[in-house]
């Protein structure tokens, strides 16, 4: 627990992070930036779990354990996504969404 900081303030911060992530996911044109936006979303929920655990239910560690698992899975996800993006880059020399897209409707 951080003295002087209430749970509301931290939850506001994570909500803002979450919506920045969603906004970035929708508006960004570069595959890597989209990936970074997704990371923002995941990390906002990691902070959420830790804070809720610490402030509201300090007797059990469920939230902490959950956040560790999220970090591990997020790393795997990023590694796989980057591998796929590199593969695309090798073929097209570009990671812009507009140039990778051929299938529509």
């Amino acid at each position, binding site marked *: 627990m951080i003295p002087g900081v209430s749970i509301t303030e931290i939850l506001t911060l994570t909500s803002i992070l979450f919506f920045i992530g969603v906004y970035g*996911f929708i508006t960004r044109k570069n595959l890597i930036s989209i990936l970074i936006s997704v990371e923002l979303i995941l990390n906002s929920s990691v902070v959420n779990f830790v804070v809720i655990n610490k402030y509201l239910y300090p007797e059990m560690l469920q939230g902490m354990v959950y956040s560790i698992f999220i970090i591990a899975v997020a790393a795997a996800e990023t590694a796989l996504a980057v591998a796929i993006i590199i593969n695309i880059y090798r073929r097209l020399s570009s990671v812009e969404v507009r140039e990778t897209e051929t299938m529509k409707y």
Partner: protein
Amino acid sequence: MELNSFLLMRHEILLFSIILLLLIAELFLPRNKKSSMIHLALVFFGIHTAVGFLPLAEGSLFGGMFRSNEMIHFFKGVLNIGVFTLLLQSAQWLEKNMLKQDRGTEFFLLLFASLLGMYFMISAGDFLMFYIGLELSTLPVAALAAFEIMKRESGEAAVKFILSAALASGVSLFGISMLYATNGSIYFEDIMSTLTATNLTLLGFILFFAGLAFKISLVPFHFWTADVYQGAPISIASYLSVISKGAAAFILMILLFTVLKPLMHVWEPLLYILALATMFTGNLFALRQQNMKRFLAYSSIAQAGFILLGLVTGTQLGTATVVYFVTIYIFSNLAAFGVVQAISSQTGKENMKDYEGLYRTNPKLSLVMMLALFSLAGIPPVAGFFGKFFLFTAAASKGYYLLVFLAVVNVTISLYYYLLVIRAMFLRKGENPIPFFKSKIYMKLGLFIAVMGMLALGLYSPLYDYIYELSAAFN
């Protein structure tokens, strides 16, 4: 805790040992014998499927994180048969294209890892196990979608899939954190007893629901479906539309009917609207598709709408009909994708126009396709009719007459585009129809299992009674 209580995880342990065995075999097999990997994997998985039908006790492990009962056990068996059929159907494609690049084993490893994730997902007892299962079932499929690395569409499909999957799981995690905040636990048992409809809970539920809705491609989250199905290899498109969607629909049903039951007054109208939107969007977009994979993608979106029709009831009849319908859907879609796979791996043709005059050259394949499409559309002797009929009965028994009426309208629309394919195959002569070819024995066996599944589920009624008996566990 006794050691033999781990036998409750028999499916998982067996599948995991198969993955390890395949890895070892890959290491020690000489280079020129790599084609025997396919037979080896098929034999292993065949044994696993057969063993999976032995009875299994009920119970839970790890303090409630993992649980199993007869319904879950039965559904794992159905998933096993589905994957086995799919492997049989994709053996030819693997042999032809992937063995040259020395990549046959990876396919099985990734596919089995994803199936393992699905097992954990459907027998999860808390949100942590559920999340890990969901991710384990999603990530290997993204790698598999990019499997044909020489094809541009394959990479595009994979990147679309992994990015939208990551977004969906991130959003649903945020929702889970809110459910945790209001209930103080991530265990389903605890949440069930404390859940009340406050504003925070509702927001958490909606965000969480979005993640699962992505997996079964309900309408606001369906944009990835068509592109991924078209770009990915056919076996993976088939896997996504059959196994992945089936497992996700099953776990959604369990969660809604047990953990989230206190929010029933919220999710009932939500599913009502989503069912209508999904059915109409899927059907109307399917009308204008020319590529067979894309066509089947939209048809599978529409079928997800029908699944919701059973979920909206929240009764035991609803559970039974949903499981029955999903099982039928798995077999029908496997047969349809199997024919597309057979034709594509022989000739490389995937468009509806290429199917013209197929009946004259390949009558057996077109008969299988006809049965599959009739089953998807819901025309009597095949199982699909009974699946849809029971779903409508379940929805009507709760008084959703308008919903049932609109669903029947949708069945009519879907009949039109399914018959378009059948007309192309049977009535059109076609300028240069696909020449006669003989499929390999594995492909024939795969199609045979799918067709037998469709016929047996429709004509042998004790199967439905059996499912109805098992469904008591969730109500």
